[in-house]
């Protein structure tokens, strides 16, 4: 308890920054669930691939610490572009290969879940076996920096050294903290506008609410679903960059735990509810930090699972209630 009080502000800020990452990834889960009633188990890998390609692009460009501000900005922009494109593509590919065939056959939910799980394992294993795969083409030596240590944590070159910008009571908020939180909120605003204002966004809401009526109104369901996955993927790509800036390492299975937590955040806020995913992410980030301060860091992951169970038992519609279809126009 004392630990919690002593470190309250650092725990809070760290919780919020981590929560921002959860929130962005949660958006992907909540969007897909709202439109398809499917838990996209493999969304965690969508995120993970974003982290790796962002990392590789920085390595390729020779990113390092202590560089000039334009260079740093340039690298970060590249990271975003690369990660968002990668994650978007992986997400769309997933939809095409693992989910669409099942949708066309009206598969029962258990089967869709099985396919999702299979895709998740396949994708993460591919990353975990990258050294062997490169080896098949004789490239494992040449690409050693990128494909080596396939099963271990790999570190991103630090391009943005955390510098304190201002202080809240006893915690020094760094530039990285600010970047992550502000950046995440910006992305969410963009998404919110997209869903509310654009044609495709309306299509998403229509399909989420009533697929048949939407089809009768001329909404192309397949296209809407593709866009949903794409948008979720892009968000996850952005999250990947924030994650790298904040935490600095990634791994072939980094997706799994983060994915479950992000899903928890989505449920916490109200599955299908975009603002809920936001709130859920931040709440989860904070709860995790405060929780592990109270009961010990080795139980950190349990906090997320317990929260999930408690929410589903006592308020399954989440804090803000389920509602992709009912987002106010």
């Amino acid at each position, binding site marked *: 308890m004392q630990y919690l009080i002593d470190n309250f502000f650092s725990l809070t800020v760290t919780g919020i920054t981590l929560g921002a990452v959860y929130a962005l990834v949660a958006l992907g889960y909540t969007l897909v669930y709202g439109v398809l009633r499917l838990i996209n188990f493999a969304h965690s890998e969508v995120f993970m691939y974003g982290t790796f390609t962002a990392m590789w692009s920085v390595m390729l460009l020779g990113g390092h610490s202590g560089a000039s501000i334009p260079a740093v900005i340039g690298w970060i922009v590249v990271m975003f572009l690369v990660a968002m494109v990668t994650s978007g593509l992986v997400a769309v590919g997933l939809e095409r290969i693992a989910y669409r065939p*099942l949708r066309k056959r009206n598969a029962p939910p258990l089967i869709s879940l*099985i396919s999702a799980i299979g895709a998740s*394992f396949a994708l993460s*294993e591919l990353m975990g076996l990258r050294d062997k795969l490169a080896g098949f083409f004789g490239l494992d030596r040449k690409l050693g920096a990128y494909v080596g240590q396939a099963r271990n944590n790999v570190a991103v070159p630090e391009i943005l050294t955390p510098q304190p910008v201002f202080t809240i009571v006893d915690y020094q908020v760094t530039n990285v903290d600010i970047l992550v939180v502000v950046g995440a909120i910006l992305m969410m605003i963009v998404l919110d506008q997209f869903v509310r204002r654009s044609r495709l966004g309306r299509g998403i809401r229509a399909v989420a609410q009533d697929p048949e009526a939407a089809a009768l109104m001329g909404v192309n369901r397949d296209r809407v679903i593709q866009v949903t996955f794409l948008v979720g993927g892009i968000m996850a790509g952005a999250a990947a960059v924030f994650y790298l800036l904040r935490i600095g390492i990634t791994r072939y299975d980094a997706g799994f735990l983060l994915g*479950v937590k992000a*899903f928890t955040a989505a449920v916490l806020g109200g599955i299908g509810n975009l603002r809920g995913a936001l709130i859920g992410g931040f709440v989860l980030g904070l709860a995790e930090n405060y929780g592990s301060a109270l009961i010990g860091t*080795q139980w950190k992951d349990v906090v997320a699972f317990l929260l999930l*169970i408690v929410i589903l038992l006592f308020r399954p519609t989440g804090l803000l209630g389920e509602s992709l279809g009912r987002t106010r126009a």
Partner: protein
Amino acid sequence: MNVFSTTLERTKALLERAKGMPKPAKIAIWALFVVFLFALPVLNIPVITTPDSDFGGVLFTVTTYVLVALGLNIVVGYAGLLDLGYVAFYAVGAYTVGVLGSAHAHLPWLMTVPIAVVAALVAGVIIGAPTLRLRGDYLAIVTLGFGEIVRITLINSSWLGGASGITEVPRPPSLTVFSVPHLDWSSGSPIVDLGNTTTFLKFGITDQIPYYWLALMVIFVVIFFDKRIKDSRVGRAWEATREDEDAAELMGVPTFRFKLLAFAMGAFIGGLSGALFAGKQGFISPDSFPLLLSILFVAAVVVGGAGNRKGIILGAIVVAYFPERFREFQEWRVLVFGLALMMLAIFRPQGLIPPRRTVRAKQADQKLEALEEGTASDA
């Protein structure tokens, strides 16, 4: 795909013929089959035997999976509930044996088993009672969460052995009834090797075969009871609940109670399997109970054909045996598994041997199609 279908067709035809035979003949065939199963590890049949690991041990693993699949089949196949955290019950069974047999007491294995299965049953009720009201996919995630909570708790609890686990777990009690020699095929044809024998039933450290025999016997008992339950009002209630839960309730079926019963029975069997595992392994640690195992268990049921007893047995055999048989490809196992799951979902979601309801539904659909297209010979 075609080769597989024709083999399946031919096997089915053979089984149909076998079904038509008079009772004494059927009993004889079954008896022979059972003897074959028991003799399997000592027969050492060349292609089937695993080159890189002890065949007896592999067979034991396979039977563990079969037992688990039988339990999970009740939950997923009969009652239609999605459970992704089944490994929790397996772990409860194993750890109860470990704790009572080694870590905090020294009860003999046989005494710990009933306590282990009851503990697993209680865990099933505790987990099931609040969560079975949830929708299908939510239930799946919550059970996954519980599985992980159990694993993390095991790692973090020193009184449960922590990350290093519990050693010197007691083994099943031994008796010496007779010894069976192995067959040796190294010269191309079978020779009885009297130097290499397995004793029925001596539970030692090196010879895994008696554990396999024990597990096999447990399986027969479980199948016996499973059959009975399936053909009773309990089985009907499960099926009705799975078909249309609301209608079932309105027809007087206390659906929640039966769902909880299915969950608890599944947990019981999971715990039993865990207890057997602990007894054979002699040592348990949280590493033995990862999420992947829960997924493998579900895969065994789905691959086989959820709801069909023969199917899930086949599924368990496939999921447990192939990775062991092709151990040299160990690195690729999980990748292959993931791809296999995706292909299964897309191309054969009903599983290898789908339950009769799916088969009959398909036959009915085909009949209907034939009628509509005017290709049927009679109505």
